[in-house]
């Protein structure tokens, strides 16, 4: 009997990118947040190198303001796949005075991640950092290359990017530079969910509808947590919600939803009138919030 591989273009592309990373760089790392995109990356990396193990470590830049469910999930995944996990904490940089905590109603450690990330890159001499950013997420990310060169300061020079023709990826860099690599650049939110569904990939429980103590501000649903600033007049209540994107607890708003299976989530996204990052408080700071952060070394 003859069996013919039924290939998936986006998956094949991503696997090809992973293999180029390992072939072209000495010291790559996968930036792992515990969100669905980085979990998808882990599955793709498994496929790229099977039957060998994933040949690079995972790194989590930990703001300390996590959803506990994400951290439990992270540790279990690493254990099951026998991966090497590096954790670098924003708290350590705050304690040592490298980073200064933001103040006020909208304070978040999201942008402090950049400092911690850049010093970890220096410490480990990573030359390639693989991330789960997608071009459809946000307008500055739509301009991103698959291999995106950053200078010594982690800066993105968006007006002078290397041409990227066909599938030919040029990872040649000078000492001290590094490359951010985005294997799922061409995937949309729906592509990621369809893949999670088809591959039966496990994801943290906060993506599914659950009861949570929340409060509303600026039309967004905020999680009640010791890490999230709340005015006295802001009243909390219990609601059935889920998270569509998972970042730091201080910058990720929930959406009201009853979707408790991947199938229902896909249906919900298809019918949704709001974009995925519409619930990202970090993007609401200005029209160019993402572009500015990226120039400074954010991923």
């Amino acid at each position, binding site marked *: 009997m003859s069996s013919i591989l039924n*290939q998936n273009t986006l998956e094949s592309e991503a696997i090809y990118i992973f293999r180029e990373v390992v072939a072209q760089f000495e010291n790559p790392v996968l930036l792992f947040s515990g969100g669905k995109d980085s979990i998808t990356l882990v599955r793709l990396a498994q496929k790229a190198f099977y039957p060998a193990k994933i040949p690079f470590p995972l790194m989590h830049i930990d703001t300390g303001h996590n959803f506990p469910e994400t951290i439990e999930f992270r540790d279990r995944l690493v254990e099951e796949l026998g991966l090497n996990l590096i954790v670098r904490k924003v708290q350590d940089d705050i304690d040592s005075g490298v980073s200064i905590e933001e103040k006020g109603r909208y304070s978040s450690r999201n942008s402090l991640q950049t400092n911690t990330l850049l010093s970890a890159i220096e410490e480990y001499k990573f030359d390639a950092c693989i991330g789960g950013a997608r071009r459809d997420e946000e307008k500055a990310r739509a301009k991103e290359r698959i291999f995106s060169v950053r200078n010594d300061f982690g800066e993105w020079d968006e007006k002078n990017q290397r041409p990227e*023709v066909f599938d030919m990826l040029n990872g040649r860099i000078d000492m001290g530079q590094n490359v951010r690599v985005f294997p799922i650049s061409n995937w949309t939110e729906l592509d990621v969910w369809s893949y999670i569904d088809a591959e039966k990939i496990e994801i943290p429980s906060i993506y599914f509808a659950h009861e949570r103590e929340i409060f509303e501000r600026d039309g967004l649903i905020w999680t009640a947590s010791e890490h999230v600033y709340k005015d006295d007049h802001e009243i909390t209540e219990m609601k059935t919600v889920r998270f569509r994107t998972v970042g730091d607890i201080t910058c990720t708003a929930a959406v009201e939803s009853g979707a408790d299976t991947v199938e229902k989530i896909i249906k919900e996204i298809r019918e949704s009138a709001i*974009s995925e990052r519409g619930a990202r408080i970090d993007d609401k700071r200005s029209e160019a919030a993402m572009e500015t952060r990226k120039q400074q070394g954010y991923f």
Partner: protein
Amino acid sequence: MEVLKIATAGSVDDGKSTLIGRLLYDTKSLTSDKLEAIDRVSKKNGLDYLDFSLATDGLVAEREQGITIDVAHIYFSTPKKSYIIADTPGHIEYTRNMVTGASTSQASIILIDARKGVIEQTYRHFFINNLLRVKEVIVAINKMDLVNYSEDVFNNIITEFDELRSKSDFQDQKLTFIPVSALWGENIAEKSTAMSWYQGQTILEHLEDLKAEDFTEESQARFSVQTVIRPKTEEFHDYRGYAGKINGNSLRVGDDVTVLPSLTTSKIKDIHFFEETFDEAPAGSSVTISLADDINVARGDMLVKTKEVPVETKVVDAMVCWMDNRPLVPSQKYVLQHNTNGVLAKIDKVESHVDSNFGAEENVTSLSLNDIGSVKIKLSKPIYADSYNTNRTNGRFILVDTQTNTTAGVGFIK
């Protein structure tokens, strides 16, 4: 789901971003938060309509100046297909960016302003689509509302375009002309009532009817090894697999293969994709192949069917599109990256420039940024290449500047 990649090309103010924005809007791909942002900025800019170009321009400088600087990738889907549009700028460094955008695309949309007709830049857009062998080209004649939806204007532009086409050496290319008004959404997703004389498809209808197999290249299989997989675990103690992407045509277990450049031969023992093995894998798939014999294979090597070995060459004649500020000049050295194999290369001679009217200018010695020309390149080691016309993946290369590391040019082997 099926994915179709499209490049767009147009001059400044041809309404390219508006057309893309309109496609997004008409396919309900713009979410309410994005629409609100477009509405807000449109009003701020004093417009009484939604400026859909705001949906695509990503960088601050682009929004401020109302121009597109870099290639942006835009995604939308219909129940039938997923679409990826490479939105390429019409002016600044347009050749470089157009080549970049078109290189990953299966189809292309060239915009023409109905008031201006075929202009110098249209030549260039068409020429690049020919050079890259883009099979499916839609010529969208935009701003029909500003020429009273005149059928004569539309037909005159087709005549002008046909003249340009007669000079092309790529006769397999399919051209489709569609009269549109991107601003008012006419013939984008919905049929125009103002142009009842036009009986053809809308842009979206046309895109929906294109099939992936229309773009599949029928050529010989080429498998460039990206990396060697050696698990060294108990279960896979002696396993040695070659990881790469199959291009050109499918490969099967049992195929007699030759390893290049060593010319050693073997048979395909198995084709792995993650935990499964397959008898056959199609072009485009990223797989891991192991061979029946224990021979030396490394990154940069290529597996081909033994009956289909491409020619060995140490001198490459190619059309080169230059993408760097530092010009290409004879005796300059680069790394020529051909698939996963990089060899040192020296520019022997710049033979001619081509202009977009398919003419050639001789007596030139260099290529500057955005120039396209015919170049002879000497290699330190031979490569096994095809001509771009017969095998797209094995007939192209990039030139990497060894001093700045940048991708300085892209070449199409003759």
